[in-house]
């Protein structure tokens, strides 16, 4: 039942959220709002800041801690305008040659009438294809829940890193249990079967690096350096090399017979 425990940890409201990461690892952060099409989505925080002195673009899904914050952030579930806001920031990053750091923490893209009317599927689809050819490095860091397409919409990256107690899943284990076994109580079994834990995902080639959570103070010291190092390393590649390596990364994913 290891996977289910991890899922519960990943969802805890006292875990550091996207904004906590931004505050700990960046300096001079300037937040930028809105998708220039419809609205500003408070479930996604985006802007520019300095990572070890170097300007980067950061895009983070924010869940909030208190009930008030969580309601304001829509529990980290973005509408289409959130994904379009993220894409706008990525395009700006490309224009100015800044690397992109995406911080992922969402139960999934929001499932509501407004989201459907404004094209949730189209917004995510556009992010997937535009991110694939973005000419600057993209690094995605999973800090809690990585829920389905809503997470992937910020995770078509050159590398994906996960916190030790984060998960990444094609569907919520509850959803899986109720669809397949018509029994939401089989969530433990579903969590195991879906292979949502970082170690499993590393074996499958979905994740490059797992970060330990045993000492947060140490982590806040090390994390900026680790991220910076990786982004500098990726910045040595040309735009087309970055795009090519991103394509190759996903191209090889899949198990099948022929």
């Amino acid at each position, binding site marked *: 039942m290891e996977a289910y425990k991890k899922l519960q940890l990943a969802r805890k409201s006292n875990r550091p959220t996207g904004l906590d990461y931004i505050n700990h690892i960046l300096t001079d952060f300037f937040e930028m709002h809105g998708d220039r099409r419809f609205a500003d989505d408070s479930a996604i925080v985006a802007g520019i800041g300095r990572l070890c002195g170097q300007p980067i673009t950061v895009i983070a899904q924010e869940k909030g801690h208190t009930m008030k914050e969580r309601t304001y952030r829509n529990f980290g579930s973005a509408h289409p305008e959130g994904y379009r806001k993220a894409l706008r920031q990525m395009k700006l990053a490309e224009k100015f040659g800044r690397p992109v750091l995406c911080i992922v923490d969402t139960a*999934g*893209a*929001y*499932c*509501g*009438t407004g*989201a*459907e*009317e*404004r*094209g*949730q*599927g*189209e917004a*995510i*689809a*556009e992010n*997937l*294809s*535009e991110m*694939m*050819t973005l000419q600057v490095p993209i690094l995605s860091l999973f800090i809690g829940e990585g829920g*389905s*397409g809503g997470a*992937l*919409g910020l*995770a*078509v990256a050159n590398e994906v890193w996960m916190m030790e107690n984060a998960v*990444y*899943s*094609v*569907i919520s284990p509850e*959803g*899986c249990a*109720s*669809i*397949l076994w*018509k029994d939401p109580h089989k969530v433990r*079994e579903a969590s195991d*079967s*879906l*292979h*949502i834990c970082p170690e499993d*995902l590393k074996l*499958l080639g*979905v994740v490059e690096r797992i970060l330990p959570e045993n000492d947060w103070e140490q982590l806040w010291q090390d994390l900026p350096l680790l991220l910076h190092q990786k982004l500098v390393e990726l910045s040595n590649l040309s735009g087309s090399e970055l795009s090519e390596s*991103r*394509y190759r990364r*996903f*191209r090889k*994913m*899949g*198990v*099948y*017979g*022929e």
Partner: protein
Amino acid sequence: MLKRANFKPSRNTLENFGIATAANGTPEQPQIPDRLCVKCPGCGKMLFTIDVQKNDNVCPECSYHFKMPARKRLLSLCDEQSFTEWDSTLYSKDFLSFPGYKVKLKSSRLNSRENEAVISGYGKISGSPCALFAMDGRFMMGSMGCVVGEKITRVFERATQQHLPVVGFTLSGGARMQEGTLSLMQMAKTSGAVKRHSDAGLLYITILTNPTTGGVTASFAMEGDILLAEPGALIAFAGPRVIEQTIRQKLPKGFQSAEFLLEKGFLDDIVARKDMRHTLSHLLKLHEKEA
């Protein structure tokens, strides 16, 4: 992700009854359907199954579009003898040992007489060459696992190499959860291949058919240069039942229908099945470069 429970099991034999074909593409003897009559979900009239089949699986009374088996669709769309199938030997593996997946794969293969939920290949539509794919709802509700993702990716890679436009019919309940996070990754993989095809200046026409939902909607289904849909098709990211559970309200009639999406600006047009061949040929010809 869309829930399987959102889709009623087919109420009649019609949706499961295609032109059975042998591996080489030649029609076998037509089978006698289990039931001679079907009730149309559109107008409620009782119809002879054979009449509906002759009419491209469309109700002769109210034009309700029944599901169309992928192979039947491609063979009826392409010029005679022009369709060559690609990658027909790819098959899914239960690599996560997911409970019940092996049995489901087996029953889907028997039920659909296909290897997987998508069929792809090369064909000509009224003389215009193109790469094609069509998804089949009888195979695990057209869900996208590694094989579907790989076949779609190969269609776009081949089409890019051979400078061909792509015509694709989508139908899917979403990503295949039995393959875990790797099925989610197929969304990125296919999107990358579509983008490369697009960057090469080539045309991609998507025809969204009932139902197209979840991870397929949020990837290659919505990435066409031209987005068409069949009348009445359900097109969604989250299916109606998931939304109703989230917002705790009944959805208005016609929400997430093709007509609704057209009104909201997410489709180029709605095309009835009987006009599909003509429309596609017209669009392909308009994009052909003068030699």
